[in-house]
């Protein structure tokens, strides 16, 4: 049996059987039939529920006359992402803000939740979590490219000269897939390394020093979230840009 967090244990106790049935229906054999839900999946569910609850609270507290602290924070973050995407993509960027903001909140909370004792950061627990975010972003920016340019979007992959198209198409395909891999590895490796460094120093010097690394981990969490969202914005800009 794998090492389970308390929340994973609760979920496995309640949902192991239906999850097993679902996985077998999808022709996936779970490694541990008694515990098919991993820590990463349990923590992702928790992050999702946490965000839904926080947004429901913010929604219920919205006020034009007397905005509260939570409203200020969320309006600030939303304004920051709107400004950033407008700077990179242009004036029609507001359509992409909801996706970029949701992605940012999800990755940030996933990165930071590992700092609370008894929890684990899903982005550091398994590379499948950053991979999921990267694959979703990959499909999102291509879908927006098709929405923006129609079938002409495929011409982006052929390069500037039609003669070179047979060479450029596989090169473009690989470079787009490499973006998924690069987004995944960057986020996972940084968060995993941050976790490991904090743990190692905590086991060596349990007082004082780990606080410095916890601070570093918080900084890395914000920076990696920012870089992930920013790169997705840059890829979106590439997909919806007007050719000159």
């Amino acid at each position: 049996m794998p090492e389970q967090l308390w929340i994973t244990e609760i979920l496995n106790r309640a949902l192991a059987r239906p999850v097993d049935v679902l996985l077998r229906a999808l022709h996936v054999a779970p490694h541990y039939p008694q515990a098919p839900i991993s820590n990463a999946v349990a923590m992702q569910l928790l992050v999702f529920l946490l965000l839904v609850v926080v947004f429901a609270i913010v929604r219920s507290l919205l006020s034009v006359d007397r905005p509260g602290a939570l409203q200020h924070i969320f309006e600030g973050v939303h304004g920051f992402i709107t400004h950033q995407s407008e700077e990179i993509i242009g004036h029609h960027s507001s359509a992409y803000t909801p996706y970029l903001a949701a992605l940012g909140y999800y990755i940030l909370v996933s990165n930071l939740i590992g700092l609370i004792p008894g929890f684990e950061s899903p982005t550091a627990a398994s590379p499948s979590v950053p991979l999921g975010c990267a694959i979703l972003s990959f499909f999102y920016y291509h879908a927006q490219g098709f929405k923006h340019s129609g079938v002409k979007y495929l011409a982006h992959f052929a390069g500037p000269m039609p003669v070179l198209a047979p060479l450029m198409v596989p090169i473009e395909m690989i470079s787009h897939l490499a973006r998924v891999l690069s987004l995944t590895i960057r986020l996972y490796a940084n968060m995993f390394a941050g976790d490991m460094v904090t743990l190692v120093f905590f086991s060596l010097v349990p007082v004082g020093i780990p606080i410095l690394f916890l601070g570093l981990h918080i900084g890395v969490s914000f920076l990696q979230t920012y870089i992930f969202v920013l790169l997705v914005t840059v890829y979106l800009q590439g997909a919806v840009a007007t050719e000159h």
Partner: protein
Amino acid sequence: MSSSPNPSSKDNFWVQLARYSQLGFILPAATLVGWLIGVGLDKWLHTTWLYLLGLLVGTAAGFVELIRIVISDSGK
């Protein structure tokens, strides 16, 4: 993919940081993706040489993306 970035983004330090943070990852990532596609095609088509072609195309794709990132910033 040739595109026209918004000119106002050229001076933003953080945008430059995010763009340049790709440099270290994109070449090995593209090479790995090319190799994996080649290995997959080898298994599917029962050949033994496509992994090499995938590796070469992946490396080329990595270099193309690398040069594109550098040119897109220095050319502004």
